[in-house]
């Protein structure tokens, strides 16, 4: 770090004024980036009359939760909130398990053609969902899974685990061979090796995958739109998008709908912040 400071001495201003001006400019830029969040939050707690009178930029004259409450009741928001939580949690758990099994075979074992299988898994994750959409829609109807959260859980379990398998396999390929060899020599079965050794040792990576699978699934839109038509099974983004701009919805109700979409994500961000940063910087995860 000291060396780093030395090199930049030439460019560092002698007085602190320039330094502070840059910080202010950068802060203004950040404030601009955060403006949509601030605007939506501010206007969700105004009354309609207040908005009509003072416009979107004025600070709210107190907290008024009528718009939020009305919108919540109108779209029966508890239901999508429950659906999204169940879907995202199930997908995160199942996809982590499936990734673990796949990566155990591909990363530790030398299954024939493993490189190609891995490339194939990566492609499956990159594939545009519309190239699977109609058959999935048709199958879901055929198997009576249409409009049931289980359909979306199964689909995303596989799509997310495609990425998990790819990432976890490369982690496992660097797993110390001596440990595995020693365990197997002692007569440990492959299943025990996985359950008692490999899985516990890879919990940090598994937790990163869990968090990303959860958030990715929460944010999904295209396939849920196709597979979950009714309010009883809809996810949060879906319920909000479909009720957007509905007849009779006033401006404060619309900002309330934006806020209800943002809030859960902010909560996840705060809870999972450390895991997220670790994951993003480790794997270039998007």
């Amino acid at each position: 770090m000291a060396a780093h400071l030395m090199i930049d001495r030439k460019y560092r201003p002698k007085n602190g004024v320039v330094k502070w001006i840059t910080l202010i400019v950068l802060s203004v830029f950040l404030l601009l980036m955060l403006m949509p969040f601030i605007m939506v939050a501010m206007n969700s707690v105004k009354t309609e009359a207040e908005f009509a009178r003072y416009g979107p930029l004025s600070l709210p004259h107190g907290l008024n939760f009528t718009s939020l409450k009305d919108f919540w009741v109108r779209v029966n928001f508890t239901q999508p909130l429950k659906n999204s939580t169940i879907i995202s949690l199930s997908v995160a758990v199942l996809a982590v398990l499936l990734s673990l099994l796949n990566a155990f075979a591909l990363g530790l074992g030398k299954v024939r053609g493993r490189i190609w299988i891995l490339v194939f898994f990566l492609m499956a994750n990159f594939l545009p969902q519309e190239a699977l959409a109609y058959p999935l829609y048709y199958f879901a109807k055929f198997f009576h899974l249409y409009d049931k959260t289980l359909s979306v859980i199964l689909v995303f379990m596989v799509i997310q685990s495609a990425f998990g398998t790819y990432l976890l396999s490369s982690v496992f390929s660097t797993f110390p061979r001596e440990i595995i060899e020693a365990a197997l020599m002692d007569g440990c079965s492959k299943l025990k090796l996985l359950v008692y050794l490999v899985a516990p040792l890879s919990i940090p990576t598994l937790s990163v995958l869990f968090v990303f699978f959860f958030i990715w699934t929460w944010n999904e839109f295209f396939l849920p739109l196709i597979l979950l038509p009714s309010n009883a099974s809809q996810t949060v983004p879906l319920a909000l998008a479909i009720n957007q701009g509905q007849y009779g919805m006033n401006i404060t109700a619309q900002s309330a709908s934006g806020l209800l979409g943002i809030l859960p994500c902010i909560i996840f961000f705060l809870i999972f912040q450390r895991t997220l940063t670790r994951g993003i910087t480790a794997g270039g995860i998007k």
Partner: protein
Amino acid sequence: MKHKTSSIYKGYGVFLIPGIIAFLVIIIIPFLVNLGISFTKWSGVRAPVWIGLSNYQRLIGDSVFWLSFRNNLILLIAMTVIPVIVGLLLATFLFDYIANNFGQRVSSFFRAGFYLPQILPSAVIGIVWAWILQPDWGVVNYILKAIGLSSLAHDWLGDPSTALLAVMVVMVWFQIGYPVVIFMAALQRVEPELLEAASIDGASWFQKFYYITIHLIRPEILVVILTTTIYTLKIFGQVYVLTGGGPGNATSVPSYYAYKQFFETQQVGYGSTVSLAMAVIIVLLTILFINIQSRQENAESV
């Protein structure tokens, strides 16, 4: 002994069985069925009729598809080109200048702030920005009117001449944080001594940035370019909520166009063809990327 050693690599195949079955049912079979449908005329109800390559011929001459594809390429400017360039500058600035002058915590705070839009679902981005850009009482037009530029205020998303541009602005806002985070992590690999040596040799800031920093974090730049490009080619939610592809087809993108064929005009066969074309493009891009990446790794290890 020999038998034992070789057995550490064997007997894992059985663990792949659930994964393979799941993949067959959810990815491979639907993909092949989609391929099959692309050779048919099908409304989704009665039996599909085999029409050979007609859908592909139609695709080649379909001006709306090409318009959607062109829109997708234009969106690359907003979702890959600008975020990578601004992300590089912003990450270097935060890492070099802000962290050195104000400490790690301040630079981490800015990083988190810029990243925040990235955590939102695509549909919520659409809802928030549709609200901001609303023509009558939206924030943007309100500000324009307040500062006396009411002549500029108009229906940003409803006017064909500005709709795509408005979507692009939204996407830049959404994308910026991702490269900033990745590049800041990558910059930790850049040796300060190297930059110092370059300074002593009289290299300018830009020369150091261009020849050392960019060169060293090339792998991350490549990853960001690939992931953002693929994300752009798959974009759906934002377009669905913001404009519904309109006005006319001014903001249509291939994924939305395919969706319309499937579920609005009931031309399932043609929708399959459109979606397959996009799948092929994405697969080719991925192969190209893996090739470049491995060539780069080979070059570095030599």
